[in-house]
């Protein structure tokens, strides 16, 4: 760990917020991608059976 001195809160806070926000947008995007894909597969199967 580098010596951050009196600026430790500023530096660690910045990196913490950044990692948290990037992780959030990646996880939300992946989760929604999976959900929408599954939903489309189901509708296509249902639509194929009835069409």
């Amino acid at each position, binding site marked *: 760990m580098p010596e951050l001195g009196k600026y430790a809160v500023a530096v660690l806070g*910045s990196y913490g917020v950044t990692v948290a926000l990037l992780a959030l947008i990646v996880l939300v995007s992946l989760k929604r991608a999976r959900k929408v894909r599954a939903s489309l597969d189901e*509708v296509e199967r249902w639509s194929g059976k*009835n069409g």
Partner: protein
Amino acid sequence: MSLWEYANPVKFIRTTDKVLPWIWTFAVVALVVGLVWGFFFTPDDFRQGSTVKIIYIHVPSALMAINAWLMMLVASLVWIVRRHHVSALAARAAAPVGAVMTLIALATGAFWGQPMWGTWWAWDPRLTSFLILFLFYLGYMALWEAIEDDDTAADLTSILCLVGSVFAILSRYAVNFWNQGLHQGATLSLDKEENISDVFWFPLLVCIAGFVLLFIALVFLRTQTEIRARRTRALLAREGQV
């Protein structure tokens, strides 16, 4: 081969499916290498001390905040002129990513500003134009959600995107237009021979590459999702389910 081939949703999904694993891989490698290099293996600045390490996240996120909106502008113009659905959906997909980049730039700027300027926030031209850009991102996303008809939503959000572009450009050039603010001039410029010392410059370049690749990966993934969601709605409407 024409670029317009990718306006076909099936072609877009097939092509991006092939390249996405590579883009994700390069994005993660560049981000890990750049951030570890910048955080652990660069010296403190003689004036800013260890807060100089914030540059590796603040500059790339600010760069992407502006460029994400410019990408949305191009995609919106393509929608307005050529009516390609994929371009409207790509603009929609990019907005939350751009909003997150703007929020990161604002938050890391505040963390840096507190010890360096003695304040978390100032109504400085660049900071204020960035805040307005963030509000435009929120308004843009809200407008997409508020309108049920996809084409109407694409039309209206495209117009909003054109208006918001003024603030994306202002965010970039605010320090040149008004020099009474606290924010220093651009860290990076193609006009200068040397921007910052090489010891900070090289890890910063790797971080910028990481942020750009992450943005591309997220936009491709989210555009695929928007295409699939739209197809689901179309199928349900055809079957009389909605």
